């Protein structure tokens, strides 16, 4: 076996195998082509949306002037904002709690905390629907002024978002050197001062990443929103769902593109913040 191997053709250089490259390209094309066609055809002048007839921004103007769609998008963004704030606070407190204390039955507690992440979405959506109807919260929220009429959806979103935030923040806290805390207290800071001036700044990248995660999770959710929204409230996914049942239109493409752009920006920022090279810094 006196063959000379070219660089990249060694037995373990699977990354350079032609069949793997072809498969890679094929799968990425399959993953992305539907999304890119959706975005591309949001700029199409053709009403039926199949054939490319020319570039226009009309669909965006139309989608923006469609008051039902506008209301739905504003509702979704409001839900995502409020749910993110609450979920981030609760998630961060839970993370601190699990990081700082040991207590009886802690593994069981952690297991229950992970349940909203693992159980099928439809089960959670349906159980919350029953709960809201039975406690009268569904009826009560209908008559409330905006944004209080969205309260059921916000509650549900917080319930499935905050365990994710807790996981993200806790993984950040693992890298915290508790001697910093001791040093702060030795130098005369109170418990509260230590928390605000030492622990919170250290947690910050985790907090921002967790918040962005909660924001995208909330904005992306369809199933739980579908079940917990009352008959009167319309959120973006629910609105698109009812529109899609009636057919494909470039207006939906335009509105979807806006939502995709928001989500992608939030995700990319979150991933940058969570990148390993950041974890060494305070």
């Amino acid at each position: 076996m006196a063959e000379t191997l070219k660089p990249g053709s060694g037995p373990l250089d699977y990354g350079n195998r032609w069949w793997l490259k072809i498969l890679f390209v094929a799968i990425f094309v399959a993953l992305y082509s539907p999304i890119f066609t959706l975005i591309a055809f949001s700029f199409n002048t053709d009403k039926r949306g199949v054939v490319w007839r020319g570039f226009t921004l009309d669909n965006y103007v139309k989608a923006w002037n469609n008051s039902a769609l506008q209301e739905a998008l504003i509702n979704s963004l409001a839900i995502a904002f409020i749910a993110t704030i609450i979920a981030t606070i609760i998630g961060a407190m839970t993370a601190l709690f699990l990081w700082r204390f040991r207590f009886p039955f802690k593994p069981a507690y952690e297991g229950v905390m992970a349940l909203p992440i693992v159980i099928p979405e439809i089960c959670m959506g349906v159980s919350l629907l029953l709960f809201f109807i039975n406690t009268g919260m569904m009826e009560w929220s209908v008559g409330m002024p905006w944004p209080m009429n969205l309260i059921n959806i916000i509650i549900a979103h917080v319930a499935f978002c905050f365990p994710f935030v807790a996981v993200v923040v806790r993984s950040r806290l693992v890298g915290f050197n508790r001697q910093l805390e001791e040093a702060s207290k030795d130098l005369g800071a109170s418990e509260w001062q230590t928390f605000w001036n030492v622990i919170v700044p250290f947690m910050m990248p985790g907090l921002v990443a967790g918040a962005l995660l909660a924001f995208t999770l909330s904005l992306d959710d369809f199933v739980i929103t579908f079940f917990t929204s009352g008959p009167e409230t319309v959120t973006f996914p629910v609105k698109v769902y009812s529109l899609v049942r009636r057919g494909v239109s470039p207006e939906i493409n335009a509105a979807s593109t806006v939502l995709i752009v928001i989500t992608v920006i939030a995700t990319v920022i979150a991933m940058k913040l969570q990148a390993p090279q950041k974890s060494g810094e305070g």
Partner: protein
Amino acid sequence: MDSWRANLRTFWTLGTPGTFWLLMFFLIPLAYMFGISFSEKISITENQFTGTLANYIRSFDAVYLQIIWKSIWISVLATAVCLLLAYPIAFGICFAPAKWKPLLLLLVILPFWINLLIRTYALIAVFRSQGYLNLVLGWIGLGPFEMLYNDGSVIMGLVYVYMPFMVLPLYATIERLDRSYLEASLDLGGSQFQTFWKVTLPLTMPGIITGIILVFIPCLGSFLTPDMLGGANAIMIGNVIERQFKSANDWPFGSALSFLLMYVTFGALALRAFLAARSRGVDV
């Protein structure tokens, strides 16, 4: 880590909000639904708790058993296709040049963050009979084909939607695989195929199991994908549950079905824990 007794005030302040929210808006609703699943429907809006098992027994009627069976095999097929496609992808990312890895990983995960409904809608636009794919096929004189609204399109939709769940755990295990085992196998005369079959595959089994569970559970519980991509006869269990709450208004039966779905989920998670404990490969 401190004992919980060390600082009681901080302990309760930090622990209460999360515990409250989880208890109030997750566990109590589930417990309530559990109760409803043993209730009888006495009028359109009222249900009476009687401890009856009728709702569970009804789930095993031939009609529903058939739907449950169909949901299971659709999910199994979708999971299998995911595994077959995701394994080479995860493998390729692990063996790609280091500077490409984060980007490739991001490309795999990114679609997962885009709204499920939008992704499904995008698929409809591509595959419907006046869709883009048929348009392209038309240029070369083929079609139009009816590609939507059958079991195949549901499986395709599920694969499209849940693929990232399979790639991530596979990537995590393959990345931690000790490559000297592969070198040893190849040095000792094993072919690439033998090395893969007898060394790589068994060592990455924990990742495969995790990936299978992570894809299988949401597939089994899915309702949007079969609802939008499936035809009238491509009903899955999630659609039946949805119908009990949104149109048929039979809460007890819907609750019983939801709990059956959850038991299957817990069974799958327990199986994963059991297999992970037995397997000697790289743990995730």
